[in-house]
C-alpha cells in the first residue's frame, strides 16, 4: 500500500512539474520516486497498510509483481530522455500518465474485491488511451488512441457485466467469498456466465486471441516507448490480475473455464505467430510477438503447482526485459529513419553494435534460445503445463508457435547483422544512459538464463 501511495504521489508531483520545465523534471522526479518505491517494496515493513478493509491485500506475491513492474517502468524512464526528445511539449504529462498507469497495475497486484479489480483495470487503461494518442500530429497515433479507447470500453462493459452476474449469484464482491461460492456451487449457470464474461474482458486487456484485434494497430500507432510500456508493464499487470482472479476467485470452478481458456491459447499461439511471419514492419511484428507471448504465458493455468506464481513472475520479467531490449533499439532506428520496416534496420550492427546486440539477445530470449532468461521461463511453463490433461497437446502447439516465431525474429537479426554496409551515419550515436541500460539488459537476460535461481534470491519468493 505504501508503494502505491509513493508511486501515486510521484505521479502527481511529476504532473505539476510540467509547469516549470517541460519533461526533464518529470523524468527525474519519476526516476527518483520509482527508486524509492522499489526500495520500500523490498522492505518487510511494506506490509504497513497491508490489509485494507478486504479491498486490498498486499501479499508476498503482490510485492513480487510490484517489484518487477517497477523495475521495468524504471528502465523505460531511463530510455525516456532519448525517446521523447522530439516531443516539444506535454512530456511531463506522459511521464505522469505512465506512473498513474503503474498505480493501476499495483492495485491489480493486490486486489481482493471486484470493485478494486475494476478500479485497477480502469486506472491502468485510461492513461493508456491518452498515451497511445500522444503523437497528436500523427494519424496512426490518433487511430491507435480511438481504437484502444473503443475496444477498452467494450472490455469494460464485459467486465462490469460479468461482475454484475457474479454479484447476483454470490451476493458479495469479495474474492474469497466468491471462491467459497464457486467451491460449493460449481454448476451455478449465472455464476459461470459471469466467470466467462470476465475471462473475455481480461482476455481483451492482455490481448489474447480472439480478442487481440486492437493490439497490432494500437501497438503500431502509439509512440514506441508507450508501446514498450504496454507490452511489458501492462502485460504483467493484466496477467497477474487474470491469474489472481482465476486461481483464487474462480479456483473452485476451474474445469468450467479452463477448456475455453485452452481454446483461446491455441488460437493465440497459431494466429499470432502466423501473422507475425507475414509482417514487414518490425513494430507490427513485435506487436504480434507480444500477442503470441500472451499465449505462452497462458500455459501457466495448466498443471498448476505451488511454483506457478513464481513461474509466471519469472516469465513475465524475462519477457518485459526483452521487450525493453528490443524496443530501445527500435526507438533509436525510428528516430533516425522515421520508419520501422525491417529494411530500416539494415547494418545497424556496424554503427551501433551494442544496441544491435541487446536487440538480438532479447529476441533470442523471446524465442526461447537457451542461456537466456526467456528459455528458462518457457521451460518452466512448458514443464508445468505438460503435467495437465491436455497439456501435451497445448505444449505441441506452443512449440510450433515458438518455431514459427524464431523465423520472424531472425529476419530482424539478419537485417541488423548480415549486411556488409550500414545505412546509418556513424555520427548519430546513442546516449550514455542508453548504453548503460543496454548493458544491464544483456547482463540480466544472460544471468537469469544461466542462473535462474537468482531471480528468487533477488526478488524474494
Amino acid at each position, binding site marked *: 500500500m505504501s508503494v502505491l501511495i509513493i508511486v501515486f504521489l510521484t505521479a502527481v508531483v511529476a504532473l505539476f512539474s510540467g509547469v516549470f520545465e517541460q519533461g526533464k523534471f518529470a523524468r527525474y522526479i519519476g526516476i527518483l520516486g520509482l527508486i524509492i518505491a522499489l526500495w520500500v517494496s523490498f522492505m518487510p515493513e511494506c506490509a504497513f497498510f497491508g490489509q485494507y478493509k478486504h479491498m486490498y491485500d498486499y501479499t508476498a506475491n503482490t510485492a513480487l509483481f510490484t517489484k518487477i513492474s517497477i523495475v521495468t517502468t524504471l528502465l523505460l524512464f531511463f530510455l525516456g530522455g532519448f525517446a521523447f526528445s522530439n516531443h516539444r511539449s506535454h512530456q511531463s504529462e506522459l511521464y505522469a500518465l505512465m506512473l498513474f498507469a503503474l498505480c493501476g497495475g499495483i492495485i491489480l497486484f493486490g486486489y481482493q474485491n471486484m470493485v478494486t479489480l475494476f478500479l485497477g483495470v480502469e486506472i491502468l487503461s485510461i492513461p493508456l488511451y491518452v498515451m497511445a494518442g500522444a503523437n497528436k500530429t500523427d494519424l496512426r497515433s490518433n487511430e491507435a488512441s480511438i481504437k484502444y479507447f473503443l475496444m477498452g470500453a467494450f472490455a469494460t462493459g464485459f467486465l462490469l457485466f460479468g461482475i454484475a452476474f457474479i454479484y447476483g449469484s454470490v451476493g458479495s464482491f469479495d474474492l474469497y467469498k466468491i471462491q467459497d461460492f464457486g467451491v460449493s456451487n460449481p454448476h451455478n449457470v449465472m455464476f459461470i456466465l459471469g466467470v466467462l464474461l470476465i475471462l473475455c474482458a481480461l482476455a481483451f486487456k492482455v490481448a489474447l486471441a480472439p480478442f487481440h484485434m486492437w493490439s497490432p494497430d494500437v501497438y503500431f500507432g502509439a509512440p514506441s516507448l508507450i508501446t514498450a510500456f504496454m507490452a511489458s508493464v501492462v502485460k504483467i499487470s493484466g496477467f497477474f490480475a487474470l491469474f489472481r482472479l482465476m486461481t483464487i476467485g474462480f479456483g473452485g470452478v476451474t474445469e468450467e473455464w479452463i477448456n475455453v481458456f485452452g481454446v483461446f491459447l491455441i488460437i493465440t499461439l497459431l494466429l499470432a505467430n502466423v501473422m507475425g511471419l507475414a509482417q514487414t514492419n518490425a513494430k507490427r511484428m513485435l506487436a504480434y510477438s507480444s500477442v503470441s507471448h500472451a499465449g505462452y504465458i497462458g500455459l501457466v493455468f495448466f498443471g498448476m503447482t505451488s*511454483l506457478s506464481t*513464481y513461474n509466471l513472475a519469472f516469465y513475465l520479467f524475462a519477457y518485459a526485459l526483452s521487450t525493453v531490449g528490443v524496443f530501445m533499439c527500435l526507438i533509436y532506428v525510428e528516430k533516425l529513419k522515421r520508419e520501422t520496416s525491417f529494411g530500416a534496420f539494415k547494418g545497424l550492427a556496424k554503427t551501433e553494435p551494442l544496441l544491435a546486440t541487446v536487440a538480438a539477445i532479447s529476441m*533470442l530470449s523471446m*524465442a*526461447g*534460445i*537457451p*542461456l537466456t532468461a526467456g*528459455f*528458462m521461463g518457457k*521451460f*518452466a511453463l*512448458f*514443464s508445468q503445463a*505438460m*503435467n495437465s490433461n491436455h497439456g*501435451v497437446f497445448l*505444449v*505441441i502447439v506452443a*512449440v*510450433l508457435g*515458438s*518455431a514459427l516465431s*524464431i*523465423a520472424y525474429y*531472425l*529476419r530482424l537479426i*539478419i537485417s541488423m*547483422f*548480415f549486411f*556488409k554496409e550500414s545505412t546509418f551515419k556513424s555520427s548519430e550515436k546513442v546516449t550514455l544512459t542508453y548504453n548503460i541500460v543496454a548493458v544491464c539488459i544483456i547482463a540480466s537476460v544472460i544471468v537469469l538464463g544461466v*542462473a*535462474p*535461481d537468482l531471480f*528468487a534470491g533477488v526478488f524474494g519468493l
Partner: protein
Amino acid sequence: MSGLLLTLLLLPLVGSGLVFAWKDKSSKYLALGIALVQMLVTFYITADFDFTPTVDSVLQHEINYPWSQFMKSSLHFGIDGMSLLLLLLTNILAPIIILSSFNENVSYRNTFYGLILLMQFGLVGVFTSLDGLLFYIFWEVTLIPIWFIAGLWGQENKRMEFTTKFFVYTFIGSLFMLAGLIYVYNHSASFALTDLYNAQLNETQQTVVFWFIFFAFAVKLPVFPFHTWQPDTYTYSPTQGSMLLSGIMLKMAVYGVMRYLLPITPLPIAGISGQIVIILAIVGIVHGALIAIIQTDMKRIIAYSSFSHVGLMVAGIFASAVITLRGTFNIEGAEGALVQTFAHGINVAGLFYCCDILYKRFKSRDIRQMGGLAKVAPKFAVLFLIILLGSMGVPLTNGFIGEFILLKAVYDFNGLAAVIAGLTVILCAVYLLRFYGKAMFGQGDDAVLSTVKDLSAVEFSVLASLAVFVIVFGIFPQPIIEMVNSSLKFIYQSMVS
C-alpha cells in the same frame, strides 16, 4: 581430477571471449593456439584414461555441482569412452578447421574465430553433459555460432534463405526434443541422466517421447525425409562452416541417439518404431547416394554422400538395439557407428576442404568445368585420393572398418536390409570416383591449368594431417573400438534392464 574436464569446457569459452576482443590481425593465431592447447589437453585425458572394461563406473572426470533447484537440474559433466571419442574428434578437427582458413582473407576475422571457438565450447558441452537440460542447452548453444558463420560468411546471394531454413528446421527439431525431455522429466525425479533412464513410462508414453526426441536427431543427422535443409546449407556455407556442420555437429545427433534415446525409450524401439527408423535410414542411404550420382555441384555431392553415410550409422545403431531388445546382446552396430563417426568426421571435413581447394583453382563448383588438375598438382592429387578412398571405405582406410561392422549388424537384423544398405559401398564408389576423375584427370582447360599451383603450405598441412588419420585408423582401428566398448555395453545394458 575434474580440473581437466573443467579446462576442456572453459578454455574454448574464455578463448572465444579473448578472440572476440582481440581486434588484431593475429587473432587467428590466438584462436589456433587455444584450439591446439585444447587438443593437447584432450590427448592428455585420453592417455590418462582407464579403458579396462571391468571398471564399474564407466564415467571418469566427473563434475557435479547443484545448479537450479527449480529445474531439478545440476551441472553434471563426465567422460566415458563414447564422450572421449567425440571429444577427440571435436578437438582434433577444431584446430584443423581454424588452420584451414589461414590462407583466406576472412572479413571480421576475430568474430569468425571467436564463433568457431564458441561452437567448440557448445560441442564439448554436448559431449560431456550428463544432465538432460544441460544437454539441451548445449545442443542449442552450438546452433547460434554456426548460424552466424553460415549467414555472415556464406555465399553472398543465397545464404539468407538457406541459413534461415536451416535454423528454423533445427530449432523446430530441438523444441520437440525439449518437449520430449520435459515429458520424461515430469515422470522422473530430476534431469540427471540416471533418473531419466529410470523414469516410469509405459509403452504409449515412451512412443510419444521417442518420436519427439528422435525428430530433433533426425533433423540434425539428417534422416530421410528430414534432410532437405542439409544440401543447401552445406553448399552455401563457407568451407569452415561445412566442415564444422558435417564433421562434428552432425555427430551430436549420433551421440544423442545413443546416450539419451536408446536407454530412455527402449519399448518403442523394440516395437514398430525402431523398425520404421531402420527403414527410413536405409531409404536415406540409397536415396542420398542416387542423388549424389547425378549432382554436378561438388559440394552437393559431398552433402548427399554425407547424408547417405549417416543413414548407415543410424541403421546400424538401431539394428543393434532391436537385436539386443529381442534378447541377443549386440553392440556391434553401435560400435561400428562410433568408429564410422570418427572416420566420417575426418573424411568429410577433408572432402569439403578439397572442394574449397578445387573451387579456388577452377573458380567454379561445377565438376563439368574441371579437369586435369592431377598433372599440375600431384601432391593434392595424392592427398585428395587418400581422403576419397577413406570416404569410400576401401580396406586399410578408416572408412572401411566402420562400414564393415555396420553392415554386419544390419545383416544380423535382416539380410535383405543389409543387401540394400550395402549398395552404399558401390554407389559411393560411383559418385566419388566420377568426381575425382572429372576434377583430377580428363580434359582440362590449359589456360586455367597453366596458372594453377599445387598445394600451399597451409593447405598441405591440413590435408596431410587428415590423411594421416585416414591411414592410421584404417590400419589400427582397435583403439577406437576398445575406447567405446565398455560405455556402449553400459548403455545397451541399461536399455534392457
